[in-house]
């Protein structure tokens, strides 16, 4: 790799769905229902040699191999779960773009809801206090009152 760097490049590389092509016509299954399932499965599987790309988007050779493998398993009669398990057993958890909820990953999944509940709780306490707080005295001085009267009359 040449020493091209930069935020833009990072972006480019990250999304380098790489030109050309992802799924090729010759890979596709004849049965549209099966092909549809294959597409859905491959959208959630990571291309291991790419940066944050699914095998459905990537045109790396490895991604193609995986796409063919997914279709092979589907043709052999596997369910969607069985296909995914098959791939995970070979390539590890890293291949899943949709992280599982097993073990510590639960923290990841509940972070949002828990964060929301905590924030709502804190906000509720704050808002109730604001509601009960007494309005600070904002009475006008005699001079200001006179000025207000003048303006209102005029």
């Amino acid at each position, binding site marked *: 790799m040449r020493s091209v760097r930069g935020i833009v490049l990072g972006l480019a*590389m990250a999304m380098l769905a790489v*030109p050309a092509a992802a799924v*090729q016509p010759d890979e596709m299954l004849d049965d549209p229902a099966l092909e549809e399932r294959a597409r859905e499965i491959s959208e959630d599987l990571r291309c291991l040699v790419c940066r944050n790309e699914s095998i459905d988007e990537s045109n790396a050779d490895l991604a193609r191999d995986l796409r063919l493998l997914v279709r092979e398993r589907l043709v052999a009669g596997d369910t969607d779960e069985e296909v995914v398990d098959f791939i995970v057993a070979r390539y590890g958890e890293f291949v899943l773009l949709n992280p599982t909820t097993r073990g510590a990953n639960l923290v990841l999944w509940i972070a949002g809801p828990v*964060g929301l509940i905590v*924030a709502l709780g804190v906000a509720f306490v704050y808002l109730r206090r604001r509601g009960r707080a007494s309005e600070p005295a904002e009475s006008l001085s005699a001079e200001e009152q006179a000025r207000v009267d003048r303006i209102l009359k005029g």
Partner: protein
Amino acid sequence: MIVELGHFALILAFAVSMVQAIVPMIGAHRGWRGWMAVAEPAASAQFFLVALSFLALTYAFVTSDFSLRLVVANSHTDKPMLYKISGVWGNHEGSMLLWVLILTLFGACAAWFGQGLPPTLRARVLGVQSAIGTAFFAFILFTSNPFTRLQTPPMNGEDLNPLLQDPGLAFHPPFLYLGYVGLSMAFSFAVAALIEGRVDAAWARWVRPWTLAAWLFLTIGIALGSWWAYYELGWGGFWFWDPVENASFMPWLIAAALLHSAIVVEKREALKSWTILLAILAFGFSLIGTFIVRSGVITSVHAFANDPERGVFILAILAVFVGGALTLYAARAAAMEAKGVFSMVSRETALVMNNILLAVAAFVVFIGTVWPLIAEMAFDRKLSVGPPFFEAAFTPFFVALAIILPVGVLMPWKRARLPRVMQPLWGVLALAIAAGALTWAMQTGRSALAPIGMVLFVWVLGGAAMDIASRTGRGDWASRLRRLRNLPRADWGRATAHSGLGITIFGIAALMAWESEDIRVATVGEPFEVSGYEITLTSVDRVQGPNYNAIQAVMRVARDGREVAVLRPEKRSYPVAAMPTTEAAIDNGIFRDIYLVIGDAQDEGGWAVRTYIKPFANWIWAGAIVMALGGGLSLSDRRYRVAGGARKAVPGAVPAE
């Protein structure tokens, strides 16, 4: 010679920034006016020096000075002029120079337009701003110097990454940086206020335009990047939840929250310490973003030439500034006493809800982005967090946000009565649900996505219309129309920006629900049909560009026998950079894009061709533009323009606290 002058100017700017970071701070502490006054000329000087340095680097790129290492690595004599110039920031060193150029520009603007600020606050704001500058000058000069010369210059350069040779991406980084770095202003104001120990309505009125400007640029920058991904990467994805994208999205979310909470500080003198915290976090996330991109710590799967030394340096900057600011915050936040009193149902509460949803959404994006790192370090699990997670975990927050938006906007300050607020909205709600039901009935698919998008679209836009209508008060049509014309720009800005959000939400929902795709081998002259469009590959030719050669297909698109468009998708190859790119051909429309991609020639004859029909795709970016437009309208509101002068005339008008 010019290059050396640029290098020298940068070193001088570094020196000036150190002076500006120290002298005015001491002056403000001791009350020495002369020392405080140093900040202004220093801020201007810094900006002009960095501008000189930036121009020198641009000059080197324009003239293809191959004795500069950076130019060799990123340019070529055959490259079109636009990309020679954009090549200046299309790389690490140059982009950091752009970063400090914008940082010093904001500093100089604060010096130029901040005449109405109390002198100590101004001195401290400029001091903090300059301290950030010092850190980044050191970063550039010691780890990423763009002015490094080569001993034996080569005959020609290695060319810029072809993917970056694109008008959309040429302007993406400057806008993104205007946003990222613009948030430094909010940060400087927050830290200065913490040092001063006071936050009041006036403070919020000074901070808000800076935040608004930063948010506006960030919106445009993100939209440009997303649009570029859509047409350049060859399959029309517009958002990937990539760490680098999330890095720009998190500050956007926090800045949006900050915009709204600053209103509460300005109008009601409540939420002060929360607003300060948001200002610190917004810039903190900008720095985290810079760190993520520069260090490559989260996306280390491939060796994309990231440098650990630079990562550590930015981590140190992050630790010093955000850590320091948060420490100061912990010590001083208690002093920021709220004044306004309001009931549980009020505009204040609605804005608190807005802040909660935006902040938790940002938190979800953050957790998702760093989780692979945490899992690997703490649990020894190598895993990925991809789009499916973000779509599931993030989307509900934005749906909730869109639901409460029209209600919150119509709420009065202090105390609201829900039935009264809802009164003008029942009609909108009925219309929204009817539109959603109609969408559900008309679509063939099974997805609830599009109907929900439609409901939110009508609800948010109708809500914005009701918002404007409610500002015109009561009475006959003539007087209401007159008041409509005289509404402050801020009101129009708010309604416009909110409408933009509705448009983007609908664009995303419709595109994701209704997109259709076709992948096949097409033979020349043999038409095929996709979603009612008849497409014919008429020819495939070789064409020659300035610094690439390409295979260009000519494809005719017809509907009901009438020609809709002739599209020319290309497959380009850039010989110098040794890299192919796909140039999709798109027929843009208001209701749909036709998106064609030409692939490889097949062994048994014909070409691989992909066709996508993308309904309402342009609405995604149109919505972003409308949002930015709303920000601009709000920014041009009269109160920001006259505020400075008015304050000078009546010095006592700033409420003492």
